[in-house]
């Protein structure tokens, strides 16, 4: 089989992975090498589905010994199968990278022969890249459930990011749909990686203390550094009955206990027919979008899962985004005075994102802000105007603070701005937020 055919099969089989981020690594190039990391990540293209393309996202092989019900590559599906050699992967990556098609490689795989055998193949490919081609670009590797700790260790020293996919939001669903994978297979490597990452931190602090004496410990540290861009995971949304509340609580605990960089949500695409699976005409994209919005609020806006949803209303409002919805349920906390409110309260105002809040804080140090100033600073008032005052004054024509009036207006806005077709994406979240520099870039690149 020629390389063109293999690429066709193995990129097609890899496309359901939502992650394509190249952020979080600032790996340096060497004078005789190729490639470097860009801390905020770079998008190189956008596919016909509007998702960013940053990495060469492929499977080592799609020959699988497992039979996960939702997966196109499951053992019992009759699909064309192919396997790359490690060298083919390396050559393809370099060929694409040299031409600036990509930021690097996202290598994943189905399970061929055994978990360890598969991981070894992946390590071989990545070793060729790092050691033979002197490649310092971004590499994201997915761990294969059930592979040994030694191999995960080896892999972790070579790559920038690793992910262990949690696949489904509960243990029951996992048992039902991915009978070959156990919860332990997922949680064990995840917590192993997370412990190693904490070690990273310790290493960094000891080495940087020594930095004044000689440079070599720092270089040594870079060599030893384990997955510098951290770990991520992904779960499928809409194939199983979990509520939004259950899902974001799971994400919250993953962020807190496993120190994950990101949780990705992937709207379920009905590929296989099975009595355990729902048949959906379309992937639940709005729901996926709401979860990304809520996830954003957890990570950058200081919200807790319990504030966003409760047992009585365990699913997100289809009409209002989670932040507006929260604000309306907590209307007693508003209006907020722009010239006095704390940073954390500014962040809770619908329509005010991280950048706007920071700008407000900076600007109000030198003078007191009115609505005109806010506009100049680039603060979008479309939603925010209902929730704020400037020096005690409301936005014009809003004479008093009236919750039902606000509700109506927000719904109207939402209707107008919700595109008729399924124009949702994880990416549109960048519109009014620019989280930490390391996570993402302005550039509204929408790079994850």
């Amino acid at each position: 089989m020629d390389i063109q055919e293999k690429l066709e099969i193995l990129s097609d089989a890899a496309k359901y992975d939502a992650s394509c981020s190249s952020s979080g690594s600032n790996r340096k190039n060497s004078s005789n090498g190729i490639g470097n990391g860009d801390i905020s990540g770079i998008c190189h293209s956008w596919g016909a589905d509007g998702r960013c393309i940053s990495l060469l996202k492929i499977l080592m092989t799609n020959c699988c010994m497992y039979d996960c019900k939702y997966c196109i590559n499951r053992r019992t599906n009759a699909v064309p199968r192919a396997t790359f050699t490690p060298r083919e992967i390396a050559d393809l990556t370099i060929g694409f990278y040299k031409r600036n098609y990509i930021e690097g490689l996202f290598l994943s795989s189905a399970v061929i022969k055994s978990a360890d055998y598969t991981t070894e193949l992946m390590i071989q490919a990545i070793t060729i890249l790092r050691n033979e081609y002197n490649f310092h670009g971004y590499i994201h590797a997915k761990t294969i459930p059930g592979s040994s700790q030694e191999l995960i260790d080896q892999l972790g020293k070579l790559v920038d990011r690793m992910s262990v996919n949690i696949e489904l939001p509960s243990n029951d669903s996992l048992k039902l749909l991915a009978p070959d994978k156990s919860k332990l297979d997922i949680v064990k490597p995840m917590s192993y990686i997370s412990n190693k990452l904490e070690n990273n931190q310790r290493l960094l602090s000891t080495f940087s203390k020594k930095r004044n004496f000689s440079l070599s410990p720092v270089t040594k540290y870079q060599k030893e550094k384990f997955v510098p861009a951290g770990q991520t995971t992904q779960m499928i949304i809409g194939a199983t009955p979990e509520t939004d509340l259950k899902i974001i609580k799971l994400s919250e605990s993953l962020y807190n206990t496993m120190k994950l960089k990101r949780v990705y949500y992937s709207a379920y695409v009905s590929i296989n027919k099975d009595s355990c699976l729902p048949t959906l005409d379309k992937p639940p994209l709005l729901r996926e979008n709401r979860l990304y919005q809520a996830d954003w609020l957890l990570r950058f806006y200081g919200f807790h899962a319990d504030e966003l949803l409760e047992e009585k209303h365990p699913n997100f409002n289809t009409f209002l985004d989670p932040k507006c919805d929260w604000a309306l349920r907590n209307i007693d906390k508003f209006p907020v005075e722009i010239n006095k409110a704390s940073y954390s309260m500014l962040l809770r105002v619908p329509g005010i994102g991280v950048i706007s809040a920071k700008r407000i804080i900076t600007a109000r140090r030198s003078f007191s802000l009115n609505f005109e100033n806010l506009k100049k600073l680039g603060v979008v008032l479309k939603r925010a105007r209902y929730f704020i005052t400037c020096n005690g004054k409301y936005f014009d024509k809003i004479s008093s603070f009236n919750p039902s009036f606000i509700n109506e207006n927000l719904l109207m806005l939402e209707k107008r701005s919700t595109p008729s077709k399924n124009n949702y994406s994880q990416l549109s979240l960048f519109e009014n937020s620019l989280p930490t520099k390391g996570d993402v870039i302005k550039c509204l690149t929408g790079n994850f």
Partner: protein
Amino acid sequence: MFNWKLLKTIYLYDGTLNGLFTIAFDCYIFKSIPSNIIFEDNYISNFLDTAIYIKTDNEKSSRIWNGLYNNVSYDTLYNCYYAFLSCQKNKEINILKYILKAFIDGPKINTMLHIDYVLEVMKLRKNVLHESHRLKGLTRLSEINKNLFYASIHPDNNVIELLGHFFIKRFPLQNLILHDKNRNLLFLYNSQNPNNYEIISSPSNFNISNYSIEEIEFQNLWKTFFKNISIKERTNPRLQMQYMPKKYWQNLTELK
């Protein structure tokens, strides 16, 4: 601004940052501000204005350069550089005022966003960096022959140098020709001489149409990948266009 003399005169200059810094130096010394600053080639004379040409003086411009760097801040100097790369018409006069104000107020200038020209310089900077970041991803290098790569770009702002730097760091062993077709500029880098690069103007008919054999193969592989990696059930051309506006498509292998 500060009670300096506001002249009715327009200053013309050679279109370089050193030229603009020379003007800033003169303004600082004479405590006066011109009514506008225009690149000489773009100036259409008009018998109502008085315009004088200020000759670039590297001595004067390096005084401004060092003054910003040492007495204000590194960021402030860089803000001037980035804003200067913008394609905005009135950038020069705003940058000038920004420089003069920076010498008076020091590094806190960058928080004084209620002043029009400060905000304007910040916006220009953001716009330039935004475009250059975008093009870091949306530029395709094609191999003409063994290890010589060529890319054409059509940027709004003059970002060729920013991009060139980026590629040299990333691909120190690849020889590179970057071609800004909107400005007819070439950025040239020879890997034998890694600490150097050149920016020259290109003949307007400069074009590349022959590629190496390997190049054609990789272009096809890339097109295959591009097609297969998107999910049919999620097809959304509107979203694609929103992130990757049509104006970039002409230089993208995968969309040709």
